[in-house]
């Protein structure tokens, strides 16, 4: 049972897939403010993200994330392809995957939901709004939502 409300519980593992260092820092700051129990992992492109999730290369000890924050426009392998691979993978597909991007183009929104994204969020320009959004993510996805326990036998 995952729960992020108490400091003494196991840390909450969040994977942020984001190529902008500025955004990584902002998200880290905002998440830290919202929930000290969050343990943030960062992948700077789609390939790194899939390596982390499948524990490939140097990621043999990588934890299974409780939540994935995925940007769409990424180098090497973009967010859409990452989304396709996550949702095609039986053990990964139950991890809530949130699209967090600057785009608010209708086409991107539609495509993301078609590829089974759990929700689509646009990054607000204002810091206050961004902090508020991250807080909402924590309150909902990391606190209120009940998620299935990962099946141990199926863990990669």
């Amino acid at each position, binding site marked *: 049972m995952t729960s992020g409300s108490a400091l003494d519980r196991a840390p909450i593992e969040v994977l942020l897939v984001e190529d*902008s260092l*500025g*955004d990584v820092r*902002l998200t880290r*700051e905002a998440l830290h403010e919202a929930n000290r129990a969050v343990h943030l992992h960062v992948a700077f492109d789609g390939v790194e993200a899939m390596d982390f999730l499948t524990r490939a290369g140097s990621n043999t000890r990588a934890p299974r994330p409780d939540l994935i924050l995925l940007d769409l426009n990424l180098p090497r392998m973009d967010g859409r392809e990452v989304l396709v691979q996550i949702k095609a993978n039986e053990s990964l597909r139950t991890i809530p995957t949130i699209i967090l991007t*600057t*785009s*608010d*183009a209708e086409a991107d929104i539609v495509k993301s939901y078609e590829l089974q994204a759990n929700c689509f969020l646009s*990054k607000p*320009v*204002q*810091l*206050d709004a*961004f902090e508020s959004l991250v807080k909402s993510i924590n309150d909902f996805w990391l606190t209120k939502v009940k998620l299935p326990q990962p099946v141990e036998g199926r863990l990669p």
Partner: protein
Amino acid sequence: MLSIEARYRGLLEAAPDSMVLVDANGQIVLSNHQAEKQFGYGRDELLGQPVKNIIPVGFAERLIADGTRGAAEALAQQIGTGIELAARRKDGIEFPIEIMLSPLQSGDGVLVVAAIRDISVRKAAEEHLSQMEARYRGLLEAAPDAIVVVNELGEIILLNVQAEKQFGYRRDELLGQQVRAIIPEGFAERLIADGTRTAAEALAQQIGTGIELSGRRKDGSEFPIEIMLSPLQSADGILVTAAIRDITERKLAERHLAQMESRYRGLLEAAPDAMLLMNTDGLIVLLNLQAEKQFGYRRDELAGRPLRTVIPEVWTIIADVKQRVAGALRSADNSQAQEIGAGIEFNGRRKDDTDFPIEVTLSILRTVEGVLVTVAIRDITTRKNAEARLLQTMQELNRSNEELGQFAYIASHDLQEPLRMVASYTQLLSKRYKGRLDADADEFIAFAVDGANRMQLLIQDLLAYSRIGTKGTPALLTSSESALERALVNLGGAVEDSGALVTHDSLPEVLADPRQLVQLFQNLVGNAIKYQGTGVPTIHVSCAQNAQAMWAFSVRDNGLGIDPKYFERIFGMFQRLHKREEFAGTGIGLAICKKIVERHGGVIGVESQLGQGSTFRFALPGAPAQ
């Protein structure tokens, strides 16, 4: 006496006619057997009878016995031939005779020998003839044309009443006159009398119909005639009957027709288009100057050639044209020219084998020579070039619109990305370090935060503006009243905070993009609330149909009002009339309104005076007519 009698008796009996010998007293002294038989008397029964018994009138009076003439005179008078008299038979029946008198000196004085011929048969024939003549005369007079009969000498010997009327003469003024008097030229020359032709040739020439000549009236005026000649063999030689028709009317009609034709020909030549006339076999029968010019042929090079010489692709419509011609001929429409095809585009081919674009209009033309097809050909090179240029311009415009759309995406995404960094981190800086650095640092950070915020608003508004064109949906029948209500909901807080009183008439359905209509009302009502003095905003939205069958909306407020010199400027992009400190905003709102209204084919304007409120007016198309 006996000797004389014996001498003449033989002669008398041998004569074929009746003969009587009469003395100066009018007594028959001798008669022959033919006379006794003719008059119904027995042998010698006539002797001693007065001649009046057999010839009651006109013979006895010629004898000397009247005592008024001398013997010589009487003698002269007694000589006569062909005197026609009436004779009386013994039974009283009378019959016509012709007598020939000759005096005879004898011992008993002057005797007169009368040879008497029964002319009953001849008279009957003559009477028949005169009946016939009367009948022919009737025919002659009944004829609609003037008829004159002319002899070999060119003299008029007979004419009818129409001839009198036409030429203005009385009959007796023309009889015996030269026919030249009424037909000065071309008729008399045809008669035999010129001596250069044989009788047969002349006869052949005298037969003629439709010879057009000039007639001359008694008053000297001339008029056009048509004569028809036919020779007539008669006892008096060859006569010529001339039927003369006054063709003044026909000539006038012909001249009118010729004028019309020359006028049409003038029109044809003056036409700006090339015109060809084609028969139903597809052969060119006539063409105008423009056709020569356009195709580079001389007229005679094209006449008789098939139309495909100049329009090679014309075969594609020939079957259709033939069908239409047949159809038009069957139809009740008898107008002279009937269009059977318009605006058909082809390539025309010049004599030098170069092609050029043409537009062809085909019409049926009914003429006396049968059905023809007029082919009006317009050189549309200029139009085609213009169309090509227009298409090119349209493509360029589309491309530039697409680029503008891409620019909007770049503005929304790629520009916002670094902007978000600037804004977020200056805000973070402000949040964490305000009051922990010196006063200058706080001020600098505040300017940076403000600048980033303004830039963000500008980019968002620019995006909203560009999306009106690129993100619009097709116009639907939309309730403008619902759109206004939706706009008021969207404005919610602003309406409540200001305590604005917004009223509206019953509003119609219009053809519009529903979301843009909401935005239009939202911007206009929002402005009316925003640009308010000290009072309570009072806003009224009304609508009426205008002369162009569009719905004319007005949004009236009691706000600050606008100086008329800014009426144009306020609809421009990022135009503001107030300091930022007074009223927030980038100045895009009315530019967006203008773009929305214009995209719907309408116009927007404002009426206002400073301090007296403003009325914004715009028109939108209504529901299409049923």
